[in-house]
């Protein structure tokens, strides 16, 4: 089966989607967090009537507007790609994606686009309180926009609340709340949005530190640092909490991703967490039953991985080989068995389709299987594994090792994300402490660190995306649809052309963003606060 796949097409389609999603994700987190930071600042202005707070609010609101304007609608390109490059996938998931995204279109978009106009045009034209409400609703609207797409993404990582219809080849939602409130969806939404809050807080403290280094707008900068540091500390605490919840959920629902994040080849009890690690030879080069993790440097925290995954220091954490080859003692089904079951589910679907016009009884009997919970739970749930079937047992085992995500990339992305997250929290605490003691202006090292942490916040944010999306490969929908069968059979040259077109467009937009934003930052906040 695998020999029929045009890997050039699959890889270019993946590269194009990754480029678009990562570019879109450059803008989104700042919008998510800066909206709330501006709302807090304006709330203080409305409460105190202090014009300095109005000046602070308007400056950060301006940067929010620039980021929003450049980033807005870049996500629509992803929807173009769904229809053109990922048509099998779009058809297969249609109903699940349709409902949440339609709600997004109606509710969040209108909320955001209506109140953002009041935010920017309404100063002095609407009452202070109404303006404040508009600012809060813009921030909430931006976060609601993220909600629906993240619910859809969570469903891809943990498909629940649906039933496959073999006649239409589509999944149909049977329980909206199972989809909306799945453990994966809740964790994903909270973890992703709070990561945006942390990024926005870093952005604010970084730029404020630049003003302090330049000895300009001192009061403005200090007040901004206080607000962003407090928001950053609270958000970081939430980020750690939701990250912890995500880790446990991934350990249960996507154990291969969890094992890859830690490059855990052999499962173990009292598994240590690798705090810092550097590979020698990449473990998946190539991956087989003899592969080992070869670390040049490794610092471990004893028992921590077991505790992180199952809240027990002596819990067994399955490794990559346990999952691929199976582990009878731990009751872990091998990938080879899952491939056989997936293949049987695919053959059932094939027989169902072939019997449609020739054998009504067989057609009805096979259709009933797709409604039989036991069959669905034991066979259909492994449907996507069937793509890796091969009658030759040796080839089957080799294929089973292909159902493993890129280990080095997952490992490094996870550790970079976590390491930088800790750095951000420490930075917020130090900045808040120094500002409260009125010593911040003299601490040049801290101020430069805050300034140069801005790009690191983007690195951490993108690393988180890589953990989520690369870590779940080869699945586009966990266990049901591998990436290779989600791709439309189109000319790979057109995908390459659009990849480069996107690159040029996105680079142009990024340059425009940086240029306009840096100019406005250099201009600084307007004096008087009401201009």
């Amino acid at each position: 089966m695998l020999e029929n796949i045009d890997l050039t097409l699959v890889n270019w389609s993946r590269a194009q989607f990754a480029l678009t999603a990562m570019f879109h994700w450059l803008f989104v987190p700042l919008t998510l967090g800066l909206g709330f930071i501006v709302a807090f600042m304006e709330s203080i202005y409305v409460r105190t009537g202090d014009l300095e707070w109005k000046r602070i609010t308007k400056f950060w609101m301006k940067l929010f507007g620039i980021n929003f304007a450049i980033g807005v609608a870049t996500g629509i390109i992803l929807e173009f790609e769904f229809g053109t490059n990922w048509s099998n996938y779009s058809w297969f998931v249609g109903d699940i994606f349709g409902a949440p995204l339609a709600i997004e279109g109606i509710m969040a978009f209108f909320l955001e686009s209506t109140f953002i106009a009041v935010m920017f045009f309404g100063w002095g034209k609407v009452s202070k309180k109404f303006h404040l409400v508009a600012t809060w609703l813009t921030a909430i609207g931006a976060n609601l926009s993220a909600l629906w797409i993240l619910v859809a993404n969570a469903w891809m990582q943990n498909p629940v609340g649906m039933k496959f219809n073999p006649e239409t080849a589509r999944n149909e939602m049977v329980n909206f709340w199972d989809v909306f409130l799945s453990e994966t969806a809740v964790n994903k939404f909270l973890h992703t949005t709070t990561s945006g809050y942390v990024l926005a807080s870093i952005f604010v403290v970084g730029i404020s530190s630049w003003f302090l280094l330049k000895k300009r707008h001192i009061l403005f900068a200090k007040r901004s640092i206080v607000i962003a540091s407090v928001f950053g500390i609270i958000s970081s605490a939430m980020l750690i909490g939701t990250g912890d919840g995500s880790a446990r959920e991934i350990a249960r629902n996507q154990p291969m991703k969890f094992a890859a994040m830690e490059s855990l080849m052999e499962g173990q009890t009292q598994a240590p967490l690798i705090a810092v690690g550097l590979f020698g030879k990449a473990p998946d080069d190539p991956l087989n039953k003899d592969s080992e993790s070869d670390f040049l440097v490794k610092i471990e925290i004893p028992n921590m991985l077991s505790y992180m995954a199952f809240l027990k220091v002596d819990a067994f954490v399955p490794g990559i080989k346990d999952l691929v080859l199976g582990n009878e003692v731990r009751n872990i089904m091998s990938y080879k068995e899952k491939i056989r079951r997936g293949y049987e589910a695919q053959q059932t679907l094939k027989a169902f389709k072939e019997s449609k016009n020739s054998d009504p009884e067989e057609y009805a009997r096979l259709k009933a299987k797709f409604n039989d919970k036991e069959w669905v739970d034991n066979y259909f749930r492994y449907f996507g594994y069937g793509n890796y079937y091969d009658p030759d047992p040796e080839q089957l085992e080799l294929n089973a090792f292909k159902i493993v995500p890129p280990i080095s990339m997952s490992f490094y992305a996870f550790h970079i994300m976590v390491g930088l997250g800790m750095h951000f929290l420490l930075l917020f605490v130090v900045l808040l402490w120094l500002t409260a003691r009125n010593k911040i202006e003299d601490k040049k090292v801290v101020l430069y660190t805050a300034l140069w942490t801005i790009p690191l916040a983007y690195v951490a944010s993108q690393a988180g995306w890589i953990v989520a999306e690369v870590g779940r490969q080869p699945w586009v929908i966990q266990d049901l649809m591998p990436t290779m069968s989600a791709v439309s059979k189109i000319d790979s040259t057109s995908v390459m052309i659009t990849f480069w077109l996107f690159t040029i467009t996105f680079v142009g937009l990024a340059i425009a963003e940086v240029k306009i934003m840096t100019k406005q930052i250099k201009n600084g906040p307007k004096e008087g606060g009401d201009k």
Partner: protein
Amino acid sequence: MYWVKRVYQFYIDGFKSMPAWGRNLWVIILIKLFIMFAVLKMFFFRDTLKNRYQTDEERANHVLEELINN
């Protein structure tokens, strides 16, 4: 009607009093939307299934074939 006029005037005043950086942003937004919808969507991003098949049944058949023969 009075409210519609007020809202209309609110937007008109807002756009008229927009600073230079705001106007630049609108130019970027319009160029971006033009590239996205008039170039990329029109010439490169046709809906594959809608383009190749007339009915939902044909589309479903195609996807079924892809799922079982991949």
